[in-house]
């Protein structure tokens, strides 16, 4: 198992390297330099800026130095907040940046995964019941309609009209401030988890080996919790890897709706100010997390599926 894990991690190193390379060269080969827009820069000032950002060096040197920085966990310097390190902006000492995004994502998954699995399992066990129909319909609605529509509507109804919650802002990260953004995210992801679980439950329960278990006279409890639970959870687990990465991105969008001080603000500022270094950093951070989640899920999958063990 350790061997599998190490192998799996080693395989993803080239993938990450390829992504970094792609992003880096995409940014640096595009004509124009980021300071074109800044007016009234004296040639001396421009020269010192170019030096500070290593833009005077040949591109391959820039690339290797950037890689070296990344290996040391350093994302370089922001191009908007001149001279500020990106690490300081992404991972501030107080609550903000990545910490906000991560917290929202974690809260979302902590609630969405068990609720999705429980609802889905119940729906699958009671196929065609009204509960099942609600789960199926909920899935259709919430996979079709994104948070950027449901979010503002939730604010309009629950915050502005009914005044149950604040309309936005971080507060001090308290329950009332986080309730709406996290709920919107939960509604975006839990229905998919429920739907996949439901399908998996239906598949597994109609499988031949469950029929064998019933033929052996096993009580329902042991059929469900001993024979059915593992195969039911496998498709759900392989869904969770990409989903976790998706929730991080979803959280960034939700931050925009609820004006939370996370990666979302940094992204918007970077996009409007052409802060390439920042966008690169965010993209690479996102890719790294995506890859890490996929590794975790693969290892978990392997632990649960005896067929992959050799």
């Amino acid at each position, binding site marked *: 198992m350790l061997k599998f894990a190490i192998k799996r991690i080693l395989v993803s190193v080239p993938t990450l390297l390829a992504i970094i390379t792609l992003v880096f060269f995409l940014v640096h080969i595009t004509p124009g330099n980021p300071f074109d827009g800044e007016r009234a820069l004296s040639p001396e000032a421009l020269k010192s800026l170019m030096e500070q950002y290593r833009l005077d060096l040949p591109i391959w040197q820039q690339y290797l130095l950037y890689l070296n920085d990344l290996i040391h966990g350093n994302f370089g310097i922001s191009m908007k907040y001149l001279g500020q390190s990106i690490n300081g902006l992404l991972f501030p000492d107080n609550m903000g940046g990545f910490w906000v995004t991560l917290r929202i994502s974690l809260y979302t998954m902590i609630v969405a995964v068990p609720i999705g699995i429980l609802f889905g399992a119940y729906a699958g066990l009671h196929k065609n019941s009204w509960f099942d129909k609600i789960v199926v319909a909920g899935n259709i609605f919430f996979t079709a309609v994104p948070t950027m529509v449901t979010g503002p509507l939730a604010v309009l109804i629950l915050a502005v009209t009914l005044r149950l919650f604040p309309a936005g802002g971080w507060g001090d990260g308290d329950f009332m401030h986080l309730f709406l953004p996290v709920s919107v995210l939960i509604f975006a992801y839990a229905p998919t988890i429920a739907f996949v679980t439901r399908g998996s439950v239906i598949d597994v329960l109609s499988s031949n080996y469950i029929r064998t278990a019933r033929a*052996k006279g096993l009580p*329902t409890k*042991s059929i469900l919790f001993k024979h059915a639970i593992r195969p039911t959870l496998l498709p759900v687990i392989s869904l969770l890897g990409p989903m976790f990465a998706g929730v991080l991105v979803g959280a960034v969008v939700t931050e925009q709706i609820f004006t939370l001080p996370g990666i979302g603000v940094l992204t918007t500022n970077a996009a409007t100010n052409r802060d390439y270094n920042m966008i690169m950093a965010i993209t690479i951070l996102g890719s790294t997390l995506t890859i890490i989640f996929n590794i975790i899920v693969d290892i978990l999958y392997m632990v649960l599926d005896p067929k992959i063990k050799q």
Partner: protein
Amino acid sequence: MTNNKTSILEVKNLKVEFKVQDGKVKAVNGLSFKIYDGEIVGIVGESGSGKSQTMLAVMGLLAGNGTTSGSVKFMGNELVGLSSSKLNKIRGDKIAMVFQDPMTSLNPYLKISSQMTEVLILHKKMSYKEALAESIKMLETVKIPDAKNRIHLYPHEFSGGMRQRVMIAMMLLTRPKLLIADEPTTALDVTVQAQILELLRDIRQEFGMSIIFITHDMGVVANLCDRVNVMYGGGLMETANINEIFENAQHPYTKALLDSIPSIDQEVDKLRTIPGEPPNLLQLPDGCPFQARCDKVSDKCQTDIPLQKISNRHIVKCTLELGSMI
């Protein structure tokens, strides 16, 4: 050889229906038969004849949209309508069932040891240790080499034939009175098939149980069974002892089935097949389900078909005058 024994399974007027989008599939239509102590009975018919569904209904294992009516008495106890907790005391203990596809019928996520011992722990209240020892013994009985170590493997680490042996061993653990084998050899290659049949014969000798053997292969029946039930369109067409069937079959469908067995004794240019298709179970005709494909069909076939007794153990459901078609 099985005369004057007590019956252990008595099926009376069994009906199995499945609700589907376009109506009701009538898989079994008023089927009645008996199984006696210690005999091996073959149930023969094409796919869709209702043979598997009959047995699943007996076990209470129909798919969710299926309903059973009629009566199934096992050792005097009515099984139809029994709650699943009461049924669970009987199935896996007194009645066991081996399924067609050994590749998918064992749980791929659990070790063989876990799947076998749970039966004994549940029905015989054994400890895990006792159950494990008993399971290893049973694996040895069905000739699994190195059973002591291999019991701790997962199903995918066994070949198809070995898996079916494991399956049979698992079902024999409780020494059931009745073993239902639903085409247990269909998915296996011919040499393995022969080994499994031999195994079943040995087991009957050793454990003295009754076996219901579902198959579409008359050749297998000739090899193994004491008696045969021929099914078509969810109903019984003919039942007789094995020699009687091969020497004195009466029903046109039985004859057609027999004609489709390849034989080395006779020289035939061409194997006979039965023309036409199995009946549509959504819309069965009145009377005999076989009428559309029968070469002896007459007007009488659309009315109620009489049961005709040739002897005590030879019954035919047909309108023809018996003996007239030999």
